[in-house]
Structures are given as C-alpha cells and as structure tokens.
C-alpha cells in the first residue's frame, strides 16, 4: 500500500540541509548518509551520495529517473555468493 498523499514524501530534513549546503559551497564530496528510507527528491538530482548498506557506504550518482525511489533501493544489503559447495564442481567463488 502506498503512503498517504496528505503526508507527502518522506524526506529526511537533515539530508535536505546537507544537499543545500553542498550546493552553495560547491562541494563535490559524496554526501554520506544512513537514511536509506529517505525518498529521492528532485533537489538530489546530480548529487553524489554514499549510502550505508549495513557495512560500507556505496556511492550513488542520482539521476532524474531515480526521483521517487528511496535511497536504500540503490544500496543492496545482501551479498549472494552463489550456491554449491563440495558437491558442485565449480561454485561461483
């Protein structure tokens, strides 16, 4: 089920501040964040983010197509190493 329109998109205020600050200071450093649940708003387009995936920060360059998604959708939290142990002859690593 979608979120109530009355509330508007969930955007972490602090992050908006950070984006505005990096805009005015011309800082190209990726914005480090843990706010995976934050919706990507048009202000974020063209900015670099470093999104926490539970272990490290994954870099993301935000494009126009990503607006409306959440930051966390672009930082996978699971690593799949493939199936197959001793029985299988190869195993993908």
């Amino acid at each position, binding site marked *: 089920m979608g979120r109530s329109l009355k509330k508007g998109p969930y955007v972490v205020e602090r992050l908006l501040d950070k984006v505005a600050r990096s805009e005015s200071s011309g800082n190209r450093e990726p914005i480090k964040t843990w706010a995976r649940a934050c919706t990507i708003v048009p202000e974020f387009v063209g900015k670099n983010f470093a999104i926490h995936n539970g272990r490290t920060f994954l870099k993301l360059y935000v494009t126009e197509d990503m607006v409306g998604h959440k930051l966390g*959708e672009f930082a996978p939290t699971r690593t799949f190493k493939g199936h197959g142990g001793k*029985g*299988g002859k190869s195993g993908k690593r």
Partner: protein
Amino acid sequence: MPRILGVDIPNDKRTIISLQYLYGIGPYKAELLCERTGIDRDKRARELSEDELAKLATILDNDDDFTVEGQLRRQIQQNIARLRDIGCYRGLRHRKGLPVRGQRTRTNARTRKGPRKTVAGKKGVKELR
C-alpha cells in the same frame, strides 16, 4: 466477426464480455467503454454496427485512459527497462529473474524462476526421485 484494432476478433458473446478479449481491457474498462459509446452492453458483438465499431476504435486509439494491446505491452516493457537501468532493487530482481515484490524464494517462486533445476548431491534429492 467484428474486428477492433486490426487483429483482435472477439466472438459472439455479449459486447461487455467480448471487449475483454482485448489486452488491457477488463471488466471495469469494458463497462466504461460501453457507457462512453452508448452501446448496449448485452448486445451480441456480432450485432455491432460499423458505426459503433468505429466509435470504439476512436476511443481506444486516442484516449490515454485506454492504452491497449501493443502499446500497453510496450509501455510495460519500458517501465521494467527503466527499473533495470537505474539499478534499484526492483531492477536487480528483474535482471535476475527473481520475484520483485519481496516474496519468498526458499520454496515456490516457480513462475519467475522457471522449471526446477535439481542440484545433485543436495539433501533430499533421493527422496524426490
């Protein structure tokens, strides 16, 4: 048999039913179409006049609320392609051919995964045979 939009030829059922043979038309849109064109929904499809068919065709062609057939399929493919391109979680699931909406994959999910690929030596394989 009447033809609407080229290929599709719904048969001699009630209009409201036969319209649903078009990809992108379900019960709701069929009802709407009948209302908009003023066609009796219980009239058999074969009894539709040229005039009525033309009316249906213009609405299906021009109205954005009624995207059907090839155009609808294309639209869906484009939406999926977009998800793949931006590299979001849903896109990744589409790429891997796994369920996209958080369903379990330990069992089931055969629609997305396709036929079972039995792994030799895996526990429980003997019992399955």
